[in-house]
């Protein structure tokens, strides 16, 4: 194969790859949730407004135990069994939507509540999603609307 024809093949391969990348990029961009596998890196998202404010959602989880005590836990601790970065998303997908919980899910949540409570038996889990206005200069947050609360009896 001559240098010219070899280089032509290489250029054609590059062109084909460029087309594939652009097409899959457009499909991924138009998809409502991120597709996989696609060639992409995290976008992070919108900058705050010019005054340094932006609304975000915070989550708070409280476990109530049979002995009358309560415990506040982070999503990553309660959902420790999940991949670290999936914990909050998985939790929000199922619990914030208000869908009925399966027996399997309820039993699993009870087992996790028992685990984070060092073996104590839990009565309920309360998930509270609160939208807040974040002030980046003061690093402070102010609630801006009524919270979404989901209490799960175990």
């Amino acid at each position, binding site marked *: 194969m001559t240098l010219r024809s070899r280089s032509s093949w290489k250029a054609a391969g590059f062109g084909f790859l460029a087309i594939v990348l652009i097409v899959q990029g457009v499909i991924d961009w138009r*998809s409502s949730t991120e597709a996989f596998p696609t060639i992409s890196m995290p976008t992070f998202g919108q*900058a705050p407004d010019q005054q*340094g404010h932006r609304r975000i959602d915070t989550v708070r989880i409280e476990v109530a135990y049979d002995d009358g005590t309560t415990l506040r836990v982070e999503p990553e601790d309660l959902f420790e069994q999940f991949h670290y970065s999936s914990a909050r998303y998985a939790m929000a997908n199922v619990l914030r939507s208000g869908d009925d919980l399966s027996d399997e899910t309820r039993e699993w949540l009870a087992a996790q509540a028992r685990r984070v409570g060092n073996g104590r038996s839990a009565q309920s889990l309360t998930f509270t999603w609160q939208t807040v206005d974040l002030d980046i200069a003061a690093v402070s947050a102010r609630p801006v609307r009524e919270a979404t609360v989901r209490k799960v009896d175990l």
Partner: protein
Amino acid sequence: MSDRLAAAIEWICRGYQPAPRAFAALRIVFALKLLLFSGDVLWIGEVPAQFYSPPPGPFMLLSGQPSVGALIALTVVRALVAIWLLVGWRTIWASVVMTVVLLLCAGLSYSFGKVDHFILFDLAPLACGLAGWGAAWSLDARRRARTTSGYPLFLFATVVGFAMFTAALPKAVAGWLDPARQATHYFVARDDIAGPVPGLLGELVLSIDNALFWKAMDLITVFAEGWLVFVVVLPGLFRLGLLLIAAFHVGVFLMMGIDFFDNLYAYAAFFCLAVGRWFPEADLLRTIRRRRREPAAAT
């Protein structure tokens, strides 16, 4: 195709061509990492089925998460393929299979509401296998002499550059370039307020009350991610861009606690050659200058 264009393509490919032994070392480190420090996938079969929510794409064809037994089999296969890659027997096939296995593991673990961004790590075996990371210190190399090729790494550089561009473009659209808005400042503050875990230096950098500093962070981020795709035809500048991206990953980890370090294995493929060959543009510039001087001296 003109001779000049053909020569340019060959020059680009030579600029990406790795040294066989350094490249083989990357193969061995990569295989050992997969063998000894692979992420657990068994959790996928242990969590309740109600949480299963695959991302758009081929994983939607699965009606539910695999059983624990199937995931144990996948873990064993991954370990066996890592050994296959380690010894370097029919290395191209081992590399292709490894990418398939990594994509399978990744796709299953992203089927719970969140897609992580380690596709470059997953694709690295495929690119490096085609580029010849089995050309030394392998059973393949014992059977007959082999060499490496720069072309697959040129294509992989295009993939890396495009991946970074997909991060830069939405940021540019989302206000990161607006002089009056501080995006990096916002994301560090958000991590501090809403979690999950702020970076080691998150609190310290939040004490910096300097709009110029925060705007510079935004601009450097968009530039570091955005320019890479435009310099893939200049291997030296591309390497410089990767060094900037590596520094950016360190910054993101320190400020926000987000770990992108697995991608460094993919970037390492572009540095498997003598440091003196990292920037072929320097040789090119020297040659051009010499050629310009020579006709002048002849007259």
